[in-house]
């Protein structure tokens, strides 16, 4: 088992100061090479679950494991190491840094993991070539279309060949053609690299690509 979550609980403070429960004890397992889709209504906690699995924020209760390591309880520094080496993220709003070029954004993934810059640049260029954004490598994000930005963000997410890729509505801001490219890439990751992909989506056709679909409702999974 590549990644597993046990009893994840999370609530946010509401406008009146009272806690608003989002996740009420979620269990999840993802195997290596598995394409897992999480669906649910808006506000059902899909993105929050992805954040907890990706160590982007702490759970109120519960555990996250990578293999045999309980990563949810590691120090901040150790969690940063896990994020850099083992997890790739694709976000709906791309989250590219606007003052960096497309290539610099992709290479950012290698900066904090101690990768040789020349090797990383070669691999980044190959990835960008494959996704058709190499000619735009020196452009800044505001100079790119939405589809191009998402492809650049995808290159950044997979540059380190992380065993787990978390994709939060990666096709939410894209037209159908660009969405198909990203979904095909994610699918290919699972098949060719054995990467485990957890996809949060509201698109039925995106969920249809998945090996398994989980539906969140009321802070827990129900059978899809």
């Amino acid at each position: 088992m590549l990644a597993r979550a046990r009893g994840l609980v999370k609530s946010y403070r509401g406008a009146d100061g009272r806690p608003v429960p989002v996740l009420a004890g979620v269990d999840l397992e993802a195997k290596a090479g598995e394409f897992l889709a999480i669906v649910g209504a808006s506000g059902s906690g899909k993105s929050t679950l992805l954040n907890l699995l990706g160590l982007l924020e702490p759970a109120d209760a519960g555990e996250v494991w990578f293999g045999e390591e309980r990563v949810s309880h590691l120090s901040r520094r150790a969690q940063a190491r896990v994020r850099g080496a083992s997890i790739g993220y694709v976000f709906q709003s791309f989250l590219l840094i606007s003052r960096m070029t497309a290539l610099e954004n992709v290479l950012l993934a290698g900066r904090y993991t101690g990768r040789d810059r020349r090797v990383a640049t070669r691999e980044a260029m190959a990835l960008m070539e494959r996704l058709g954004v190499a000619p735009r490598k020196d452009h800044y994000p505001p100079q790119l279309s939405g589809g191009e930005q998402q492809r650049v963000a995808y290159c950044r997410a997979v540059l380190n060949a992380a065993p787990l890729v978390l994709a939060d509505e990666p096709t939410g801001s894209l037209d159908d053609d660009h969405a198909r490219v990203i979904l095909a890439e994610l699918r290919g990751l699972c098949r060719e690299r054995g990467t485990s992909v957890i996809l949060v989506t509201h698109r039925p056709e995106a969920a249809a690509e998945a090996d398994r679909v989980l539906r969140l409702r009321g802070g827990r999974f129900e059978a899809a």
Partner: protein
Amino acid sequence: MVGLTLRALVPRGYLFTVVGIAVGVAGLVALGAMAERITRFIEGGDRFVLGQISVAGEGMGMGTGFTAGGLLRAAKIAEIARVPGVAAVQPQVMLPLRTTTSQFLTLTQELVLGLDLTVPMPNRHYQELAVRAGRFLRPGDRGVVVLGSDFAASHKLGVGASLPVGGLTLTVVGVLDKTLTAPDRFAIVSIADARDLWLRRDPLLVQVFSSRPGDETNRLGRDDLNSGVAVAWSAGEDPDDVARRIQRAVTGVNVTIPSEVSRLLRESTAFFSALLFGIGVLGLVIGGLSLSNTVTAAVFERIGEFGIKRALGATDLHLLGEVLGEALGVSLSGGVAGAGLALAIGWLVDTRVVREGQQVFVFSPRLLAFALAFSVILGALAALYATLRIVRLSPAEAIRRGA
């Protein structure tokens, strides 16, 4: 070329931060340069009074001078010269340039100083006054004048020009280098010319000078017309001791004790010192707040970027290192730009007011070095503070706030 250099110095997205810092540093440097100007004036006066013993005759005042007192007659000067420890005595006449206006504002007072050049300049700290144009006075000179730089500028006079004073017309033979203290506003003439001027201007003195015919003992001669003397002490002597010796040995004179005059000078300039301190504090507060606020805002503006970087594996130390590196570069660029801006403002203002014989700013190397160090250190501290605040957030929270 300039664009490339700027791009290399200033990380992308930091232009407005650099401009903000530059404005703060420019304020700091400009206020500091004004404070420096006042300091130079006070320090110059202090160096002067510590460099000689000034003696005037007993009384309430003749003309004006470094020492309050009356006429100092030639016989008294000879007595002073005989006091053990005295190396040289230079008779002087000091007169206000304008007799019709109050001279209470000593910062802007213009004076005529008559020197007896047969005696070497006795002041240990001003044995030579550097000349910017022309030459200094020579023994035997008559009808000529050497002007302080502010005096020359305000009267628009250069070498060869004429200066009419109290019925005399003096020819300018030299203009001094700027000293940033009293001599900048002096017109230096031979003591013989100064005595002539004094007699022409003071009708009462003419009566006294020509009175008591036949009373040879008390009759005034031209050599008696001295508003004071500057006394040099012999090597190895303590100037205060020599001054007290003169006090004891020569009756009917006012003697300044150098260390006491220095203390009195500092007391009398306490207002300026307080003003100076206030300007300095004001400069630090205004410049510091502007700079730290700009840097902190610039870092907080990047909160989302920090969230993304932490999602990609950046540790707190990675981010601190990156921010500090950028903050140093940005603060230094802003500091240099601010210092340049202040220099430009100072140049513009001084170019305007120098025509009136004033200089408002002194940009000393120590001031510029302090401003740069201040901007870099404060910039780094502000960046450090902002980063430490941001890294306490989870990456997801930082991304949310950045959005």
